């Protein structure tokens, strides 16, 4: 036990606690702006979930991650697939997506299981040859659940999986040359799609030409709308661009030091879209009330969470530990970056939660379990099975 405490990473743990505290306050403020009483107590749900999560966190952290991976990787992955199929059949529809099974969202938990499975695979001695075949296997392991999640549809979750798993394959030396090519192709085609939409939606583009271009753009209408808002944020600010405009107004009007906790006007006067102010847009609520100072504090706390993740990977002596730490850290990073960036128009709007700050029990538990694993990597870095 003494040995375990010695290697316990207090930065990773402390920043998590601080983020949970901030999240609870933000959820309190966002929830009280809503007229439905049920949301006023949402912060209690969040807090109780966090306490439950802390218990699991310590249980996992104190257990050797290698044991956990050996034991749970395969059954966990299979369970994830089963749940993802179940949600497509039995799930309840909320805001046009089938994401809920009973009381939780399988897509959030599946992210953790995918990363666990990938770390276990790439860290084991079984796959010595790191060539195209392994790449295909990895692609299948990530791809099958990803497609199931996309079918819900939940683009945001899939999007955050891409950087995490891509990075894991890259640092795990899986067919690196091919990965670079695929990454390059991906980047170029994204740029091409952006360019095409820009060309087609320019105000002086004739409608015939627009239709011609749009035939080749592989996006759904609502996605094209979001890309349009991203490219032309000042157009249609009462229609499609309303959410982004209001997000920016609330963040920007927070100014340097904010309007004070519980005093955010955009939030309390319901200018921020109410349906997502507690989830995808909670950063706007927080930034309006705490200002630039609060934003920087939040970013520093995320830094204090992510950099220890990389540090723990560095300290870890085996590939599994490194892959696990980097995979989970990158997943959190992707969430943080995309969520905040979309709120200020740096990337197109995508529905995904901000770790610890957004209300959402499944995702909170998922990342706490993930960070428990990272803590376990830190604690058990010198042990072997």
């Amino acid at each position, binding site marked *: 036990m003494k040995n375990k405490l010695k290697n316990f990473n207090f930065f990773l743990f402390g920043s998590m606690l601080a983020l949970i505290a901030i999240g609870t306050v933000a959820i309190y403020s966002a929830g009280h702006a809503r007229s439905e009483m049920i949301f006023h107590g949402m912060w209690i749900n969040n807090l109780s979930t966090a306490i439950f999560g802390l218990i699991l966190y310590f249980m996992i952290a104190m257990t050797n991650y290698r044991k956990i991976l050996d034991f749970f990787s395969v059954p966990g992955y299979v369970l994830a697939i089963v749940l993802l199929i179940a949600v497509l059949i039995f799930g309840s529809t909320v805001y046009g997506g089938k994401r809920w099974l009973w009381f939780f969202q399988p897509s959030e938990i599946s992210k953790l299981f995918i990363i666990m499975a990938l770390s276990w695979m*790439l*860290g084991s001695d079984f796959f010595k040859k*790191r060539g195209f075949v392994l790449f295909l296997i990895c692609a299948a392991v990530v791809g099958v659940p990803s497609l199931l999640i996309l079918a819900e549809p939940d683009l945001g979750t899939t999007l955050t999986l891409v950087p995490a798993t891509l*990075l894991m394959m*890259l*640092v*795990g*030396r899986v067919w690196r040359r091919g990965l670079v090519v695929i990454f390059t192709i991906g980047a170029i085609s994204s740029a091409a799609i952006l360019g095409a939409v820009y060309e087609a939606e320019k105000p002086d583009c004739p409608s015939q030409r627009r239709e011609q271009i749009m035939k080749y753009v592989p996006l759904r209408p609502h996605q094209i709308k979001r890309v349009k808002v991203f490219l032309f944020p000042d157009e249609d600010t009462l229609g499609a661009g309303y959410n982004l405009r209001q997000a*920016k*107004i*609330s*963040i*920007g*009007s*927070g*100014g*340097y030091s904010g309007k004070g906790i519980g005093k955010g*006007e*955009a939030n*309390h*006067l*319901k*200018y921020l879209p109410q349906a997502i102010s507690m989830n995808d847009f909670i950063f706007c609520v927080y*930034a309006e009330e705490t*200002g*630039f100072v609060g*934003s*920087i504090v939040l*970013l520093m706390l*995320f*830094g204090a969470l*992510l*950099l220890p*993740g*990389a*540090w723990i*990977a*560095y300290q870890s*002596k*085996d*590939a*599994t530990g*490194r*892959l696990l730490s*980097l995979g989970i*850290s*990158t997943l959190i*990073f992707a969430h*943080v*970056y995309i969520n*905040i*960036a979309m709120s*200020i128009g*740096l990337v197109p709007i995508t529905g995904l939660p901000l770790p610890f700050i957004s209300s959402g029990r499944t995702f909170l538990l998922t990342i706490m379990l993930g960070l428990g694993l990272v803590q376990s990597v830190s604690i058990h870095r010198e042990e072997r099975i």
Partner: protein
Amino acid sequence: MKNEVSIVSDLSCWASAAIYLMGLVVLAVNLKEVQVEDAASYNYASARQSIRRVETDGLRGKIVDRHGRDLATNRKSLSIVLNAAQFQKNSWRATTDEIEKEIERVAKCIGQESPLTRKSIERHVSQTLAMPLVVWRDIGEEELARFSEHDREFPGFKCEETDERVYPYGSVGSHVIGYVGRDRGESEAGDEKFNFHQLEMRGRSGLEIYYDSYLRGVSGERKVLVDARGFAIKDWVVVESKAGPDLKTTLDIDIQKAVEKELKGLVGACVVIDPRDGSVLALASAPSYNPNDFVPILSKELYAKYSKDPKKPLLNRASGGAYAPGSTFKTVTALAGLSIGYPQKRTYECTGVFKLGGLSLHCARRWGHGDMDMRHALRESCNPYFCNLGYEIGTNAIIRAAKTMGLGSKTGIDFGVDIAGVVPDAEWKEAVYHEKWFPGDVTQMAIGQGMLLVSPLQMARIAGAIGTGYLVTPRLKADIPTRKQKLPFAEWQLRVVRDGMEMVVDGGTGKKAKLSSVKVAGKTGTAEIGRGATKRKNTWFIAYAPADDPVIAVAMVIENGDSGGGTTAPKVRNVLASIFGDDNEE
């Protein structure tokens, strides 16, 4: 162990850390731009969408007469208003339903039906949601008591004190004082500066509209914080409004009353001015209306009553009625003749009819007056004399004199209703009737018939001008400086007409206007309009008094009278008697 570590290199860990750090720095830099550099513009955008600016009126100034008596003032009034934010539901329709239902509940409690229609509630919800909705305006004590007793059961409703306009003298002076009105919707849609104008009252007629901005004073500003759907969350005063100043007028409510007493039951108008400075002492038109009927809003029944009345009670005949002046115009014709050298002593033999070509104009005295000079012609109002005078001096001389006396142009009074009338000439006749100017036209004009049109206000001014030698610009606001113009006639020329007018009252056609206390000078007029069955007579009397040093000038016209001397002169006499005091009042 070494082998495994080599799979995931140390560099991978550092590179990942670098990516995290870079990402967070990119976010920090962009957040600084949004939250620090552009904060002001986002703050402005935030305020613009969530704050409504409302212009509020100060207490409207009173209108008082020359002795400070209130002609228009304010009284406290209680209204029941509601804030729609209390009744918001998920859809606008459901919100409107809820408001309607709640109003119904309050209606049952206070025992008064709601004056609002579904449509007006819908309009409030769609347009003026940020403002309170006035449901019951000006409620009585009984309703107030019932509402106060149960007001806890009606969240969202409250009692509000407002000021209502009141006219203590009722219909007396209604045409000159005017009235205020207000839109049913309480608040008007705004302009660039304000989102709403919460105006208590707006002048709609008379002095109330002419001096509307003066009486309204300096408006204040209130701000209302609204949520995303437009419901008012809270409001606060930014700039206090200032009460408007009182409007002191030249009117004398006693004279106004005396005038309206004479006009009662008739159709006509009367103007009394002080010819020394142009002060309008009374400006009356009959029939009149009660301006209190218009406050806060005119009911449908009263509107129908006023608008369908063939006598047109809303019409201001005193300064807006165009009448043929009849024989009162002979004073102007006389001055026209004198001014171009027509000898005042030259006589003309009146045989009872004046013939010119196929036209024959009769004198009031069928058998004729015999030889007449100018003074006596005025005294007897002899038509042939003036027809001949007009024929001899020609059209241009008469037109010039008429324009000199202010006819054919607005009087310049500080009042909205101020007609110019018509002084016809050859061009005008050609343009309007497509006919040539005949010699008969000038003989007609010489006796104030034909196409000549004047307002009673213009004639009062002429009466005063003859008495004082100065044509004044009439005025209603007390502190406007006097404007007057010396008439371009020699003193002896004016003397001739004054003598004639004094003789009119002293045994002439207007002897019924004679007073024992002061010497009155006047001129009768009986203008015939229409022909055959529709033939009617508008009877005039213009006067000034005291004849030697005039302080009062009057013009009165009665529609469908018998004659100027018989119908109107005694009424003017009574008005003058009330001003100067006379023991043998009729």
